[in-house]
């Protein structure tokens, strides 16, 4: 998709005025946040699981090349093919070539964020393939031609009404001529339409929640079962996965699975957790005959070598955005690309550049709620702050803010001067605002006064009063 992160401010302001979106976002605290909290309280080991998850992933990242090679060897042993891609372009080309070689016409997809990241749908459609998303949320968005607004619940911003309209518009030709208004009827209609797609598809493309070096397996976690149909029915399966998805063993994956669904949706485990290894075996009753994995770097090796390395621990649970007070007010689309919220505010500037996504690291109060819930203990506020440092060094932040801040620091580094300047300023401000108790407008502080008054200061500074008091004592 065409990113529009540079318009973050305008996007956000529009989102704040969008009543349907606001209603959906209000649900987050009652749904995902409360659900995670219940899971947290029910599992005394939760904190030790987080610590261990961090250790396992740090160990894996320290030895990433070796574990990827182990994984590669097992994939090949089990009859699969492994393809490496440095960039989204390379990844798209590989996927298209596999589809062409298989003489495929139709492709179905199981929800995958890395698929969004490399823009696989548009590329396949441009290459002449019919592509259908099978995760219900993603399917709704495909019909609406919108990007996901949440990494776990992609269509969280869509109301039932909008979905009813979309289905009527797109399913009418398939014989579904009644506008369904019940949730269950909508789900059922999608089930019927997509069932046909599943049975007819030549290629199924899924993502991977984890890759297992021990066995060469990929892991998919879903509640709908769409990922399983996608990896079982078509004759070719392609797994698109980023290099940071690998973990050493099945036991390591088991630990991470204990955290994933709990952190994401407040479930102990999702309805389906599936480990897939290679193509169908000679004697197998069903399954694809070809199995391909496309391993994608896309700036991850660069992050590995920087202070942003902890970001590569991310297991894409979405807890950080569910708990983010900014995401909770503006939703995912405002962030302008596919990864929203705290994790997206770290990833997007790396993948698209700070020029495009410079707002994102700044649009955060550093309140830290994300870090306290992240199942793999990514210090998100610290990473956002370090992106701000990069911006500062590259002089990419606003010059007015720079000047104001430099001036403040310059004065603050000179305590005597600071005291000489601040006392008259504060007493003037206090005299002006004493009666009303606050200002509705203030030159150079319009950012503050646009939405709230500026309370009047008490009038003197503590330092001046304190020194007077001390002199009086003596």
């Amino acid at each position, binding site marked *: 998709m065409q990113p529009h992160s540079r318009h973050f401010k305008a996007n956000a302001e529009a989102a704040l005025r969008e009543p349907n979106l606001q209603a959906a976002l209000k649900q987050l605290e009652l749904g995902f946040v409360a659900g995670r909290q219940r899971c947290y309280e029910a599992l005394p080991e939760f904190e030790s699981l987080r610590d261990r998850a961090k250790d396992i992933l740090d160990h894996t990242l320290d030895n990433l090349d070796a574990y990827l090679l182990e994984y590669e060897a097992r994939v090949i042993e089990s009859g699969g093919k492994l393809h490496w891609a440095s960039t989204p372009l*390379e990844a798209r080309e590989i996927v298209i070539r596999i589809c062409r070689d298989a003489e495929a016409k139709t492709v179905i997809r199981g929800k995958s964020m890395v698929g969004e990241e490399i823009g696989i749908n548009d590329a396949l459609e441009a290459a002449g393939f019919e592509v259908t998303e099978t995760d219900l949320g993603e399917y709704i968005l495909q019909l609406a031609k919108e990007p996901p607004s949440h990494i776990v619940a992609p269509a969280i911003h869509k109301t039932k009404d909008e979905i009813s309209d979309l289905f009527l518009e797109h399913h009418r030709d398939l014989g579904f001529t009644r506008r369904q208004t019940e949730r269950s009827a909508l789900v059922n209609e999608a089930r019927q339409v997509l069932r046909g797609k599943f049975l007819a598809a030549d290629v199924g493309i899924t993502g991977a929640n984890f890759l297992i070096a021990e066995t060469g397996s990929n892991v998919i976690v879903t509640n709908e079962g769409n990922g399983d149909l996608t990896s079982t029915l078509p004759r070719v399966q392609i797994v698109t996965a980023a290099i940071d998805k690998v973990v050493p063993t099945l036991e390591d994956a088991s630990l991470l699975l204990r955290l994933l669904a709990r952190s994401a949706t407040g479930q102990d485990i999702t309805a389906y957790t599936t480990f897939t290894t290679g193509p169908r075996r000679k004697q197998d009753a069903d399954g694809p005959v070809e199995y391909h994995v496309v391993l994608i770097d896309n700036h991850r*090796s660069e992050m590995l070598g920087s202070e942003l390395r902890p970001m590569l621990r991310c297991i894409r649970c979405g807890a950080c955005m569910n708990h983010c007070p900014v995401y909770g007010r503006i939703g995912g689309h405002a962030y302008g690309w596919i990864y929203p919220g705290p994790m997206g505010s770290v990833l997007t500037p790396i993948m698209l550049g700070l020029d495009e996504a410079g707002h994102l690291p700044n649009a955060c109060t550093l309140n830290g709620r994300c870090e306290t819930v992240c199942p793999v203990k990514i210090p998100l506020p610290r990473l956002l702050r370090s992106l701000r440092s990069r911006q500062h060094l590259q002089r990419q932040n606003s010059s007015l803010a720079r000047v104001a801040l430099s001036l403040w620091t310059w004065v603050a580094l000179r305590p005597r001067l600071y005291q000489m300047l601040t006392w008259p300023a504060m007493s003037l401000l206090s005299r002006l605002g004493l009666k009303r108790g606050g200002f509705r407008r203030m030159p150079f502080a319009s950012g503050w006064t646009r939405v709230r008054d500026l309370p009047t200061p008490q009038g003197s500074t503590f330092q001046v009063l304190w020194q007077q008091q001390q002199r009086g004592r003596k």
Partner: protein
Amino acid sequence: MSAAREQVLARIRSALGRGELGKAQLAELRERIARHPRQIEPAFSEPPQQRFRQKLEAAEASFVALDTLAEVAAEVERYLDASAAPKRLVTSGDELLRALEWPESIELRVWPAKGDDKVSLTAAHCGIAETGSLLLVSGEQNPTSLNFLPDYHIVVLRADQLLLRMEDAWDSLRASFTQMPRTVNFISGPSKTADVEQTVEYGAHGPRYLHVILVG
């Protein structure tokens, strides 16, 4: 393609500030894989069967425990009657199920499943008490599509195959197979989605109903 492979690996190594790992270090990593140490396994105090059942029922699956395999056919018929489901089954060819004797009232077909099969019957390799999950593996007689295409999925599990945790399932698989089966499904309830207004609906793409029969 292999150029990309070398580039990615080179970038990773330079990011880690080192070259390829030495023999000894690689051996250590392989040893860790071979040892596959168990990580943290949360404690639970309920008896496994009780926990298994509670978790499944909390996920909207139905559950019944029988004493003998001979009772399974009658239970399937009872379940289908109670659910007003068609008495036409597609089953896997699992040994456990082959031994069953069926009344005439039930129409039976051994796989493959078709897109319009309504009821499937399969056997689980094992069950997991911690999460209330069934583990089903693909194989010569066990097509994965049976687990996902029909509306009603009935699974038979032998009580002695009810294990405590996912880690126990791995050990069981390692003991039973020389290579990971192509597909290993952990199934912990019927198919569901919350993609319409964050409200759960059952029967998204996979089975709308999951019925678990524990035997023994």
